[in-house]
């Protein structure tokens, strides 16, 4: 790759590869490195030991390191950094890398490798790291020459954080970390083969404005790209200026505030009736940093054929997201924030306003869908309803907590019932759907924002996938609150088995669960069990009042509760199942 290197005179002191790696992290302003030592990274750990700027967080399993770095990145917008050893260190990290990749999270992963002379000889703790991770990173490097190390790490941060973000891995053989080179960290970098488009096409933005102004049944659909692209302010201004309905995807929650009356809720497989129906029936759709994925629009053929005259404007930084599953009429490639700012400026400069009469009638149609009250549940039950717990969590934290979740029913209830007002408050694995992320995510968030309330909404199955991180929470005093919605089932698996597999609950019931209260105590935390609806609020208040303790709330919930609405796999998004249908 072509690099503009400064003259030799500017190069600095001589350092070992290990020291260079750590110095690069310092130059990048990295606060935390999440990792786990091992043979191939011993020199790097030695270099870490000799400095104070970069703080290392020792996890209990490499998967936890990656998720924690990922959670830190999701909450802050800054790249998360992880450091693991070769072989099993890397393979344990793969799930975390793939999780970040699917949700376009900026991360730099540094991995140890066996010495260059041993590569390919099936050495102890050797694996083909760049080969194994290639399909789940934005890019990766194997550094064979210590003189290339600093520039490679610079490239890694540059690639991870620009364009559509993603994880970048740098594999460093042990001998490279031991050898010495002159250290120079370039301020800027140019890669001839990598130059993401930033500015949207002016003509396309005008076309988009025209379509929006002519719309009779408009809809604004906002995805995770709006959060990654820091465009939430522009999204909010645009929606309010036009007075159009707005929906957020699972990854987009918080991009537009849930308290605004124009918010029609999350859309998709477990989206609201009003969001899904408006999405299906609108005449002009503005998609912002979203990718029309299978959990959002269901069957693309149904989506297209059900409303063939619908015009779609799609703003995204990644051209390959446009017209991938759904044909788009006005594609705009660029930073969502900048494109929306231009669109707003055009709208404000012009005299034209949306058709008020058409909009009024569209809003009354949406009101009719809203009146279905599709998220209703039995509030009189004397068994704890999971939705009720999330509502109480929202009340107790005044809607201002960082909420991480694992994957399954609890994730959907948290998404539906915790009404997110701000971006980067909802931290979950949307793309890969990785069980076990919730607790390490909460660690990353709490380290980034020690004074903020951090709740991990989880289930008894998910939380056990990274439960060992309770120990990390103890070591670094991370007083997060774990809200374990314990229904003794892999709830989402059970729900699909109930709906689509004739109530045959094959292996979705988990017998012999641990006593989570004692488990929390064994790790040095506070455990509480909650069994009655009347005790939920009190327990949550007590947990959050314990400012400096991690509290594990084991909340025994209704085993039979399902997530509604639901679009069955392969169906169109207007083909929803509601709780009353069953």
């Amino acid at each position: 790759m072509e690099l503009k290197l400064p003259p030799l005179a500017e190069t600095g002191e001589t350092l070992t590869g290990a020291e260079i790696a750590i110095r690069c992290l310092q130059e990048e302003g990295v606060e935390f490195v999440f990792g786990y030592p091992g043979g191939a990274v011993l020199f790097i750990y030695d270099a870490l030991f000799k400095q104070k700027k970069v703080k290392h967080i020792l996890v209990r399993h490499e998967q936890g390191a990656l998720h924690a770095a990922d959670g830190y990145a999701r909450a802050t917008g800054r790249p998360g950094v992880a450091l693991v050893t070769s072989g099993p260190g890397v393979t344990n990290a793969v799930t975390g890398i793939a999780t970040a990749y699917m949700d376009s999270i900026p991360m730099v992963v540094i991995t140890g490798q066996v010495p260059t002379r041993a590569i390919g000889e099936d050495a102890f703790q050797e694996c083909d790291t760049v080969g194994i991770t290639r399909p789940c990173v934005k890019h990766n490097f194997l550094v064979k020459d210590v003189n290339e190390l600093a520039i490679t790490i610079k490239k890694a941060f540059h690639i991870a954080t620009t364009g559509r973000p993603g994880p970048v891995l740098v594999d460093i053989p042990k001998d490279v970390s031991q050898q010495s080179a002159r250290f120079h960290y370039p301020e800027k970098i140019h890669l001839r083969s990598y130059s993401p488009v930033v500015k949207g096409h002016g003509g396309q933005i005008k076309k988009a404005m025209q379509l929006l102004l002519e719309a009779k049944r408009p809809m604004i659909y906002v995805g995770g790209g709006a959060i990654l692209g820091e465009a939430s302010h522009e999204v909010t201004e645009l929606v309010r200026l036009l007075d159009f309905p707005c929906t957020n995807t699972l990854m987009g929650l918080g991009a537009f505030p849930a308290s605004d009356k124009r918010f029609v809720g999350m859309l998709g497989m477990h989206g609201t009736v009003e969001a899904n129906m408006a999405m299906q029936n609108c005449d002009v759709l503005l998609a912002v940093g979203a990718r029309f994925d299978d959990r959002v629009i269901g069957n693309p053929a149904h989506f297209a054929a059900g409303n063939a005259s619908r015009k779609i404007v799609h703003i995204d930084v990644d051209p390959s997201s446009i017209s991938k599953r759904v044909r788009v009429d006005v594609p705009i490639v660029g930073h969502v924030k900048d494109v929306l700012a231009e669109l707003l400026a055009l709208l404000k400069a012009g005299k034209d306003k949306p058709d008020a009469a058409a909009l009024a009638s569209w809003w009354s149609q949406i009101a009719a869908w809203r009146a279905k009250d599709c998220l209703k549940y039995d509030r009189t039950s004397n068994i704890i309803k999971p939705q009720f717990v999330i509502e109480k969590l929202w009340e107790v934290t005044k809607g201002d907590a960082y909420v991480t979740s694992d994957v399954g029913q609890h994730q959907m209830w948290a998404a539906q019932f915790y009404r997110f007002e701000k971006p980067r408050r909802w931290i979950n694995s949307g793309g890969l759907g990785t069980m076990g992320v919730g607790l390490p995510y909460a660690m990353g968030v709490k380290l980034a924002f020690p004074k903020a309330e951090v709740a991990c909404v989880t289930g008894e199955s998910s939380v056990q996938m990274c439960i060992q991180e309770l120990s990390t929470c103890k070591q670094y005093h991370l007083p997060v609150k774990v809200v374990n919605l314990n229904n003794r089932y892999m709830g989402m698996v059970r729900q699909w088995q109930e709906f689509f597999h004739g109530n045959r609950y094959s292996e979705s019931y988990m017998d012999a669960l641990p006593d989570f209260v004692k488990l929390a105590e064994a790790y040095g935390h506070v455990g509480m069990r909650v069994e009655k609806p009347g005790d939920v609020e009190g327990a949550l208040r007590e947990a959050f009042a314990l400012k400096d303790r991690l509290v594990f709330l084991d909340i025994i919930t209704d085993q039979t509760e399902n997530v509604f609405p639901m679009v069955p796999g392969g169906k169109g998004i207007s083909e929803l199942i509601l709780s009353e249908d069953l």
Partner: protein
Amino acid sequence: MRHILSILVENEAGALSRVAGLFSARGYNIESLTVAPTEDATMSRMTIVTTGSDEIVEQITKQLNKLVDVVKVVDLSEGRHIERELMLVKVRAAGKDREEMKRTADIFRGRIIDVTDKSYTIELTGTTDKLDAFLEALDKGAILETVRTGVSGIGRGEWVLKA
């Protein structure tokens, strides 16, 4: 639809597996793939022959462009272009068939580049179609071994593919 993609990639270890991995991971077809360095030693040029609908080929192009090692991608089949493939065929050439084999090679403008008393090795260059036609013209039993490079392509006229 058949498409011929010309791709300039950084001459880095792993660039080929990134491209090949993309095709297999996303379920795209590769009919042939050739790669070699260019006049600029820092870059290699690949020619990939693939099939798919316009939507799929558009996605392939976009996904290729997303790879950090990929410098440029063009779909040669969108314009006038030339394509060539090289084939080496070892054929049985003994007795009365020996003369006939040489004549067939001549008709297709093949060159005999190795000879034993029982066999010829014929070098043939042309479009995929021409190479197929040559093989069809031979008696199946006479073909001992074939090896083909896959298609290389270049645009017609003065336009050049550059970084």
